[in-house]
Structure formats: C-alpha cells, structure tokens
C-alpha cells in the first residue's frame, strides 16, 4: 500500500473533524477567507468543506467541514501531515449563506478545484462573493 493510499484511508477516519471544533488550531498550510463584496463585510457563518481527489477511485474524499467565523475565516483546515500533493476542492455553500441573509444567490454553491504540487508552501484560497459574482485567487 502506498503512503498516499494510506493517507487517503486516514482521511476517511478523520473526516468527522470540523474546523470550528478546534480551540487553538495549529497553523494550517491551507487557508481561506470569504468576503461578501455585495455588502462590504466578511462572509461570516458560511458553511464550507474541503475535499481531496482520490486518484485511485476518482472520487472526492471529504477532509473537513465547518463554517467561517465572524472574520470570514476558517482556521485549522488541514494539518501539514495531511497536506499531500494532489487535487483539492473547497466547496462553499453560497446559496445557503445568502438565504440566511434573506436574499437569493445566482450560485447555489461554489466549488474551487485546485492542484497542489508543492505542499511545503502556504496556500490561501479566498472567495470574494456577491449575489451575482465571485472571484478567487491563489494567495499565500
């Protein structure tokens, strides 16, 4: 069994983790920040989840789910150990978020799929979102 395969199995077992449960999470090599550009405020309380593509089965493994804090951030997304090279997906429940604000959203959810080839770096994957637009970029 390859170490990569072993990591995928570990991920299954740890998938019950939520980033909001950790009181003082160690720095995650992957971070996000949701900004509500429609209102000029952080996107607080947005449900999100992180997934990694299992290259053997071509299916997505859920790594963690949680919600953004008052600052629109979600600390503790992933540990250095679990952050192996691969294809990841961050899913943001944008429709649910805007519904909570009493509005509709053109996008029921946003999924950002990205490739990590060098996990020793820091990666910041923000989401700038309004009801009818969104953008993202690779930060550090």
């Amino acid at each position: 069994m390859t170490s990569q395969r072993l990591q995928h199995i570990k991920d299954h077992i740890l998938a019950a983790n939520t980033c909001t449960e950790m009181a003082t999470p160690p720095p995650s090599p992957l971070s996000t920040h949701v900004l509500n550009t429609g209102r000029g405020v952080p996107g607080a309380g947005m449900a999100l989840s992180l997934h990694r593509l299992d290259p053997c089965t071509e299916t997505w493994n859920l790594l963690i789910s949680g919600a953004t804090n008052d600052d629109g951030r979600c600390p503790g997304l992933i540990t250095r150990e679990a952050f192996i090279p691969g294809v990841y997906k961050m899913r943001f429940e944008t429709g649910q978020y805007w519904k909570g604000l009493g509005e509709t959203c053109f996008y029921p959810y946003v999924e950002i799929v990205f490739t990590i080839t060098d996990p020793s770096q820091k990666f910041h994957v923000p989401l700038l979102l309004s009801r009818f637009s969104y953008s993202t970029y690779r930060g550090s």
Partner: protein
Amino acid sequence: MDPSKDNRPITTHVLNTADGVPATRMALSLHRLNTHMMIWNLLAVGTTDEEGRCAGLISGENLSLGMYKLRFETGQYWENLGQTCFYPYVECVFSITSLEQHVHLPLLLSRFSYSTYKGS
C-alpha cells in the same frame, strides 16, 4: 426581445487576463442537473473561438428552469500554452429561475486567479 438572443439564452466569454487576450480554443461544456436522479446531464460541448466566445450552447426552446453548470477546461488551456494552472478546471454552477432572462457568464482567468459574474 432581441431576435439574435432568442436562441442563445446562455452565453459565455473567456478572457485570459494574464496576457490581456481572449482565451481561444478552450474546451468547455454545459450541463443541467437532473433533480430526480441527482446527476448532471451533459447538454453541449464546445470550444471558444478567436474572440473567446462559444456559440450554440443551448437553444431557447431547450432552456428549462433549474440548476446548470458550465465547465471550463482551464488546465488543458494553459498546458497548450506551455504553462501550468492552479485550477485544473473551473465549474460554475448557477440557477436559471426565469425563462425570460438571457444569462451571460464570462470567465476572467489567469494561471492563479479567476472571476465570473452574471451579465446580460
């Protein structure tokens, strides 16, 4: 209603913001969510032209209310230009709530960023 838009209720325009040019020859596909089976049905595949546009994604008569997905093969596009891209593909999922509207979905893309918005 503009007759030329009658038959093109969903359009797109892909721009390579890194090089300041239209993104030509990018493969893309349009899908609609089958809510009974919760699977995506492929409606059309295409490639952007010299202007970064792709005609004939869906006709007005085939448009129905529901959830749609436009998938852009961004990794392949940048690979053809001899470069890598942070995003192997981009999928933009959106809701059509009215049959009257024309929905224009541009994608502004570089190797390390992208944005999209609902245009007309």
